[in-house]
């Protein structure tokens, strides 16, 4: 971990502007991130540190910029032609907006689970195997099989689908589809998993399973989750960031945010006065 020195330097630099969490160096560190969609200033000067091996949730009313910020972390915004991102986001001290960084390679380190389950219209096996294949993670079929099984197990989907790996992924229920998408993400063994309202299209039971899964995954991955449900944020995350009108209002221990927010806007949001 030769990077650790860099972390310290970075955190030290950022200290003045940030609400720096105590403990290990941050996995992700955003500094002065601004996002424009054409004329629209969607995200204003966001600075935040995200702790490793923990769940951080982004909350806030619709259109507050939380998803936009999430999509900055794996540069998915690059695919939007009109989108312009300034500032820097460091992952393990490395600026991912550095021209030398390949966004495609980055995304193999920062996986993403989307709002609506979007399995490929292919077999369950192919869904999970696709990522390892394009990243050459398996040397042969046996290894690939092992990765698929391990990923599906981690996503606690294996027992349900092990007998029908060749059936289409789109034939699963919504909750299963979402877990398949999580399995697909795990399969490429990312360091960070971004989840964009992963439960918004699911029923409460499926939601509960995903939440359990997130709890388990926290052991191995840094997870950032955007949610519109404060209860979910409270249940799954250790840290919470509140976004409002394109700015990051405050970030801190989940417990602290929900019980004694320091900002009036956060207070208003969690008590239901804005949103």
């Amino acid at each position: 971990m030769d990077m650790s020195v860099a972390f310290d330097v970075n955190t030290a630099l950022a200290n003045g502007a940030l609400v720096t969490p105590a403990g290990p160096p941050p996995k992700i560190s955003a500094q002065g991130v601004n996002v424009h969609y054409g004329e629209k200033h969607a995200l204003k000067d966001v600075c935040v540190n995200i702790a490793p091996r923990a769940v951080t949730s982004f909350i806030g009313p619709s259109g507050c910029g939380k998803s936009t910020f999430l999509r900055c972390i794996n540069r998915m915004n690059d695919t939007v032609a009109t989108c312009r991102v300034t500032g820097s986001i460091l992952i393990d001290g490395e600026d991912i907006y550095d021209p030398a960084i390949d966004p495609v390679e980055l995304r193999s380190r920062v996986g993403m689970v989307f709002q609506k389950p979007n399995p490929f219209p292919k077999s369950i096996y192919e869904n999970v195997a696709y990522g390892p294949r394009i990243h050459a993670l398996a040397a042969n079929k046996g290894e690939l099989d092992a990765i698929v099984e391990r990923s599906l197990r981690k996503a606690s989907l294996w027992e349900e689908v092990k007998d029908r790996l060749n059936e289409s992924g789109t034939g699963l229920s919504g909750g299963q589809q979402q877990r398949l998408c999580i399995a697909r993400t795990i399969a490429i063994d990312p360091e960070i998993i971004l989840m964009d309202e992963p439960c918004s299209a699911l029923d409460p039971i499926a939601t509960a399973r995903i939440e359990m899964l997130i709890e388990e995954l926290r052991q191995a991955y840094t997870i950032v989750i955007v949610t519109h449900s404060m209860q979910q944020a409270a249940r799954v995350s250790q840290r919470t960031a509140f976004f409002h009108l394109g700015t990051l209002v405050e970030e801190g221990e989940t417990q602290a945010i929900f019980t004694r927010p320091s900002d009036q806007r956060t207070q208003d949001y969690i008590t239901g006065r804005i949103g």
Partner: protein
Amino acid sequence: MTDIGFTSQGIAPRRTDTRSVAAKARLKARYRSNTRFRWYGISALAIASAFLVILITDIFTKGMPAFWQHSIVADVAVTEDIVDPDGKRDPSAILGADYMALARTALAAAVPGIEGRTQKKQLNDLLSSGAADELRTEVAAHPEMIGKTVKANFLLSDTADLYLKGDGTPIINSAPSLGTATPSATAGEITVLTTDTDFAAALVEVKKDIQSKAAALSAEADRLQRLNSGTTADRIAELRKDAKSLEARLSNPNSEEVLDGKIASHLVEINGGLVKVTKLASSVVTGDVLIPLKSTEAAAPGQWQLITYATPETDRSISDRGVAFLEHLRSNGHVEKQFNWRFFTAGDSREAELAGVRGAIVGSLLTLFVTMIICLPIGVLAAIYLEQFAPKNRLTDLIDININNLAAVPSIVFGLLGLAVFLNFFGLPRSAPLVGGLVLALLVLPTIIITSRAALRAVPPSVQEAALGIGASKQQAIFHHVLPLAMPGIMTGTIIGMAHALGETAPLLMIGMVAFIVDVPKGFTESATVLPVQIYLWSDLPEPAFQSKTAAAIIVLLTVLFVMNGAAIWLRKKFERRW
């Protein structure tokens, strides 16, 4: 906010009047108008559909007969001195022999007693010039047939074939004869004398016929005179003259009538022969023998009869003699109707009965192949670029507008492009499927790009996002996930584009694919024609048999198009995915 507005101004609320008689009538009228409008729509739709039905029916009634062909079945002696005079069984000698001679001999045997050059020629003219082709291949394949007598099929000429298909004349048998008839000879010009006035009724008919003809001619002349367009003066004079000469014949009280080709033909069937009447009186006729009589014996009443070919000889393409021969052959079981395989296995020909569409079909296939391998990859790749990679700038806007405009540029302009660029500039061969395919590729490229873009757009972005989210590059996401999902839509568009290309004619005329090409093309740079151009070429030919061939070729073309479009619809239905 101000729901008390009008009351405060003191105006009483007015209800819509729905109860009065006038209001009811108004409502009724409105409903009637509604119904009327609806019926306009229904009738428009019905007329449009009727167009289609009439078109298809017309083509099918015209074209279906061309799928069958008549031929003569007769025993033929494959004599060695004609087929293989050297006796060496040399295949090229056998192939080169004069099989038409055999065919003519066989035909002469089937209609015995025909003497004289002209009459023999008229008999032989019933045969197609390719009548002996089948026998030729047969004998060449089985030389052991030489020296034997075999049953063979000899293709009839197009006029004979058309006659047998019913495009000739109705044949009317007169009432049974009452008198005993005596012919003066068995061949040549003879008289037939009957003991009763067996021909009186026919004479009356003929006179009536002449009278109505004269009246019709006068009426036509009057009509033209009324129109008075100047250019028809000669025609009017001619009509008047004809009418006058006919009337002159009527005014002649002579009970004898000379028959000519302008009125129905009358024939006497007697003693196994047939006499064409040239002079008709109530109990005696003079005529030419068409089919020789067996004897000059007197025929008892009922043993002979008067026959009428109702359509005048000048109004049909087959002569009385031809009809007589064919009827004779038919009644002796020498005529056979077969499915016209030749239509699918032969190339073009100047003889309608020998012409086929194989050359055109192969030409179409070669051309479409070129079109397909050029425009499918280019079209799909261009669509991917425009839909997924193109930055939104003026250049791509220009490309976009361009493609939409190109899709509506008249096809003949593409022909001009092909002529000027491919033929004159690049010096590619005229009439070749290669050039035709290139031109058609440019023609359908816009269609393929537009439909492919629509198919790509129909794949939800979430699929691409999912792939990007696990670190696939954009091209990987597109080529691995988006394109396969768009493929059914792209294929549907491609098939429709190909169907369009298959039916296209005008641009191919420009690059010289109109040549008369007998051989089936074997390569992309050989001269060829395509099915629609073949249709165009045939439709221009004056022979009535070619009209039927044209319609038959259209049926083939429409069937192929129908299958292609059916495949496109099937593909769309099968792979249609609702996201």
